[in-house]
């Protein structure tokens, strides 16, 4: 093997490597056969990454469409790390700007939901700092904040996308879909959905919330203190919510204002 010694040789090699990467990523047709092999590998690796990050979307759209979406998305969003799991976050926005969305108005919302679930599945997990609960008596409520666990998120859609996601998450492929059960779910849960996204034994999952609880979570995420939260949600059952949050590992700790 030839050894590269001089800095100019190393710089030249780096330039050539960068050019090769650029030529692979431009994904133009009519390239040399060797380059086409790298490009096909890139296309299918990207499509596989999307199908892992968006498993329900793949069941809805099919593998061929995912390959086409991956190719189009690559032109817009290049991977910026060695981990393909980091790539593909702009898919919902990309789909939302295509004509496809006119006939399938729920698809970009499904994509947005799946990316959130995907990100949440990669968060570090933490457990409740139980001693911090004492702040409820030792501090004024205006100085107490609730810190949610990092693997907790919320999601809202004008459509019942949770029912579509749940129906497809449970099956191997779209042909196994129980359309009668899905129609029944739509009848039972029409209109918008407010969701809590959380992780159960490493697997991301979702839970339908009522509107009040959704906005309670949202205000916590926006950093309101407990006094503000209780003022803004006078009818909210904080007593039972806190017990449920402890039980389900939704919160990491209560923290005093000076630690923010």
């Amino acid at each position, binding site marked *: 093997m030839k050894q590269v010694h001089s800095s100019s040789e190393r710089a030249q090699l780096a330039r050539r490597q960068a050019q090769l990467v650029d030529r692979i990523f431009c994904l133009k047709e009519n390239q040399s056969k060797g380059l086409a092999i790298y490009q096909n590998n890139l296309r299918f690796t990207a499509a596989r990454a999307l199908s892992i990050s968006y498993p329900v979307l793949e069941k809805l759209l099919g593998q061929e469409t995912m390959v086409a979406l991956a190719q189009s998305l690559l032109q817009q969003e290049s991977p910026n790390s060695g981990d393909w799991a980091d790539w593909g976050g702009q898919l919902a926005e990309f789909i939302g700007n295509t004509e496809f969305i006119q006939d399938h108005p729920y698809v970009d919302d499904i994509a947005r939901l799946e990316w959130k679930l995907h990100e949440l599945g990669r968060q570090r997990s933490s457990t409740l700092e139980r001693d911090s609960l004492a702040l409820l008596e030792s501090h004024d409520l205006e100085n107490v904040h609730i810190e949610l666990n990092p693997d907790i998120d919320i999601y809202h859609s004008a459509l019942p996308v949770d029912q579509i996601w749940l129906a497809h998450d449970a099956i191997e492929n779209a042909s196994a879909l129980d359309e009668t059960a899905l129609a029944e779910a739509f009848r039972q849960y029409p209109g918008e959905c407010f969701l809590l996204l959380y992780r159960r034994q490493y697997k991301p999952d979702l839970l339908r919330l009522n509107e009040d609880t959704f906005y309670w979570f949202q205000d916590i995420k926006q950093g309101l203190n407990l006094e503000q939260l209780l003022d803004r949600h006078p009818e909210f059952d904080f007593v039972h919510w806190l017990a449920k949050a402890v039980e389900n*590992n939704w919160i990491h700790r209560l923290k005093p204002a000076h630690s923010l």
Partner: protein
Amino acid sequence: MNQKQKIASAALALALATAVVAPTHAAGKEKCYGIAEAGQNDCGNLAGTHSCAGQSTVDNDPGEWKLVAKGTCESVGGMLKAEAKKRYEEAKKAKS
């Protein structure tokens, strides 16, 4: 004590009496390496080449893991983390 402070005290009392029943890391489970089919792993691998579920590309890769009931890993042909890590380090040394 005002009304909100009373609510906070009641919340504290109930929360302290509540046990955590759904930790993210399931009690009674363990990470089992070398048994996940391609695309069926539960989280990031030993090599650090990916960081999430479903990203493995090879069946039964010794660096990939799935959660299994505690005590059952070796009976299904897998390895616990210490052994998997040891083998991974050995394989890495052999390659270099």
